[in-house]
């Protein structure tokens, strides 16, 4: 429903919700009030749409050398959304993968139709952060799902994200490997230790109010994601952390759903080498500046 998405984006009544970061105490109260106004407004708007269920979900799939994984993810996504009866589109942002990911994406577009599969490639590898921004510009849904295209994020969790979002009227729903039934598969003890250690350090230093900051399987309201993208400057893992930290600063609400993360079966990891060093640098930067 593009008409509604447009109305949301341009409605001046929505402007007031974006208050500056790091509010004083009185601003904090004002923000609470604004938040409840916003909620009331949203409920009315949704009721306006008659018939309900007017939501549309845009899934952003950034790919770099995911020729093997991409068709499988798309198939699972399409099945999941069809089964749950939700309107959706999949936006594939391929950064000129040498393995022919784009070619397979074109085949998928033919199979599923160009209203469901939107190809928005870029000529060269420009990085994950800008891939999200690029994809988001073409999204017509009022919700955006961000996930990896390497099958470590299973689409089956998306209906749970949606349910959680409705339940708590959250601005963001984040998948978490560190809570409840969440977990990982295919990690050795060393990788688990690093992950747990890094997570503990992050929790102590940033107290972010969400348990999985480095994960990248999340559902956002479109306007919230736009605002966050505008604010966030970091790269890689740290980018995902910054999104949550900024979201808290802006007073957005975050829900969590436990997910199982299955390490990639096909293809190679792109974030290698000095991962830990850049993670620590990013963490300390956020610690000192937010």
């Amino acid at each position, binding site marked *: 429903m593009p008409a509604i998405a447009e109305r949301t984006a341009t409605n001046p009544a929505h402007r007031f919700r974006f208050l500056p970061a790091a509010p004083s105490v009185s601003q904090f109260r004002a923000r609470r009030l604004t938040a409840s106004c916003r909620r009331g407004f949203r409920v009315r708007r949704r009721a306006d749409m008659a018939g309900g269920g007017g939501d549309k979900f845009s899934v952003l799939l950034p790919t770099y050398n995911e020729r093997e994984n991409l068709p499988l993810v798309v198939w*699972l996504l399409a099945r999941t959304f069809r089964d749950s009866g939700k309107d959706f589109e999949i936006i594939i942002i391929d950064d000129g993968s040498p393995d022919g990911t784009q070619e397979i994406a074109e*085949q998928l577009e033919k199979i599923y139709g160009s209203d469901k599969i939107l190809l928005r490639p870029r000529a060269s590898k420009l990085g994950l952060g800008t891939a999200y921004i690029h994809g988001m510009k073409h999204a017509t849904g009022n919700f955006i799902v961000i996930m990896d295209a390497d099958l470590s994020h*299973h689409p089956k969790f998306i209906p749970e994200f949606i349910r959680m979002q409705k339940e708590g009227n959250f601005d963001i729903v984040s998948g978490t490997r560190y809570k409840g*039934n969440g977990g*990982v*598969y295919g990690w050795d003890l060393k990788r688990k*230790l690093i992950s747990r250690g890094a997570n503990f350090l992050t929790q102590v230093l940033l107290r972010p109010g969400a348990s999985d900051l480095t994960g990248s399987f999340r559902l956002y309201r479109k306007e919230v994601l736009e605002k966050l993208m505008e604010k966030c400057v970091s790269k890689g893992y740290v980018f995902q952390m910054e999104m949550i930290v900024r979201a808290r600063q802006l007073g957005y609400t975050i829900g969590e759903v436990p997910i*199982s993360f299955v390490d990639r*079966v096909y293809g190679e990891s792109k974030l290698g080498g000095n991962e830990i060093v850049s993670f620590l640098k990013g963490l300390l930067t*956020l610690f000192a500046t937010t």
Partner: protein
Amino acid sequence: MTKLGQWLCGLVLLGSAWAVLALAPPGLRLPAPFRQALLPLPVYLLVAFGCYALATVGFRLATFNDCEEAAAELREHIRAARADLARRGLRF
């Protein structure tokens, strides 16, 4: 205030409270037994936090879920996806 600022504020507050009590001039000192407990307190706290950190990380490491079923299910899904996509004419 930044998180760093919050930490520094907390540390300065606690630190000065400790310094006032522990390093007061002889006339204003707390009774000896209290003072003896107070002097090494920062070290105790540091050690306690270290233990807490190790215990927490250790416990969470030991209880980190291994999602065997999720992996098995994914393999199953991959098979189904491949078969169906091939039927629809996808050339892998």
